[in-house]
């Protein structure tokens, strides 16, 4: 059995909703097939009040071994670094987070808020929110850049707003079944198995990206969402078009631009008016180009691609 505890800091419960909808494997599978013992979870935990506090104390005292510590949501430090604005089981939650992380074999940050700070940490960040080991792209976060769980790993970051259900449960299975040492993490401590490819990888509109045919309004049945509607698919690391949502779709597949929610800068441009669903440009050139592409190459590629575009790519293709 692998003991798991899941706490929720500054968050909307979106990752809990995602987790509870997992299918491959499901939450029930975690318990029945993979030996995960959910000691407590905000939606599943049976303990309340003093009994919950006793459970947390027993984990901190190592009377009960803690295999996996999951945090959803930010660590709230306001006011003045005390964390009093988010009290939990009799004390600021940030104190529980600090002590549980010190005892855990593995520590996982689920969702943007726990990984990078996400929306709560967006300026002016009134709750003084911070991610477990990052604040935006800056390493450190609440636990500090040198933090390692007992198994020797840094915080395992599974970002997303929310994270896909299967990213969460598949990572939990890997840890619970003793394959934690096989994990390969990227510079932002995300599992490479999920975050090496781009949202664009597998996008059904990629032919429109290649031929530089743009969607210019929502609801169009053709066109790439990157050029005009602010899609961040070409520069966002996620498997959203490989491991589909609800098993059959994704944002871009239904004509919704990727918001780049698995990257530390999310929400981009601090959600300033006019920056959402609109590609930001400087003198007519996108401010963010596809990862690894330089401006000169981008402009050259665009001219060649448009000249080569076939007729069909300009017509509606996603028809009923």
């Amino acid at each position, binding site marked *: 059995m692998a003991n798991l505890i899941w706490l929720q800091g500054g968050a909307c419960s979106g990752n809990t909703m995602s987790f509870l909808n997992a299918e491959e494997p499901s939450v029930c599978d975690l318990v029945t097939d993979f030996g995960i013992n959910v000691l407590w979870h905000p939606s599943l935990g049976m303990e309340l009040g003093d009994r919950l506090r006793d459970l947390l104390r027993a984990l901190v005292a190592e009377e009960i071994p803690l295999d996996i510590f999951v945090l959803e949501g930010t660590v709230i430090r306001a006011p003045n670094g005390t964390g009093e604005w988010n009290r939990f089981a009799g004390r600021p939650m940030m104190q529980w987070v600090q002590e549980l992380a010190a005892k855990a074999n593995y520590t996982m940050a689920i969702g943007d808020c726990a990984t990078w700070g996400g929306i709560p940490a967006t300026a002016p960040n009134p709750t003084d929110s911070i991610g477990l080991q990052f604040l935006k792209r800056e390493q450190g976060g609440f636990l500090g850049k040198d933090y390692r769980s007992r198994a020797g790993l840094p915080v395992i970051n599974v970002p997303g707003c929310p994270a896909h259900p299967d990213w969460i449960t598949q990572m939990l299975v890997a840890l619970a079944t003793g394959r934690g040492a096989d994990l390969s993490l990227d510079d932002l401590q995300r599992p490479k198995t999920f975050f090496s490819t781009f949202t664009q990888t597998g996008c059904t509109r990629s032919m429109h990206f290649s031929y530089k045919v*743009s969607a210019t309004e929502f609801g169009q049945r053709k066109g790439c969402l990157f*050029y*005009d509607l602010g899609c961040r698919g070409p520069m966002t690391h996620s498997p959203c078009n490989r491991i589909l949502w609800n098993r059959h779709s994704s944002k871009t597949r239904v004509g919704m631009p990727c918001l780049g929610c698995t990257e530390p800068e999310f929400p981009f441009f601090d959600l300033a008016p006019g920056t959402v669903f609109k590609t930001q440009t400087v003198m007519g050139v996108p401010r963010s180009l596809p990862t690894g592409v330089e401006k000169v190459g981008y*402009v050259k590629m665009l001219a060649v691609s448009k*000249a080569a*575009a076939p007729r069909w790519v300009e017509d509606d293709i996603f028809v009923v």
Partner: protein
Amino acid sequence: MSNDDHGATLDAITRLLASGLETQVEPFPPTEKEFAEILRELRGLAPDDLKSKLIISGFKDHPHGPDNASCADCIYFLANRKWCDLPELAVPVEPDWYCRLWRV
């Protein structure tokens, strides 16, 4: 737009530009903010006010600037249909034309 209408509108624009229609080629909108302001102006026009549309968007019947920017490079241009797909413009265009709503 039918083929006949497409051809007729293309001819009308060609004639207007060839006649020396003065359009607002400058200033080029440096960011989305200024770009959006031009779009707002265009949305305020009567649907059949082709001339004002050309003036506000700064149409030219030849490439523009040191890099010879033209419709052919622009993301709103549909090459096979010779069409500007920016909803606020939505007019037939030639690949070697230009306007200040040019984007790549």
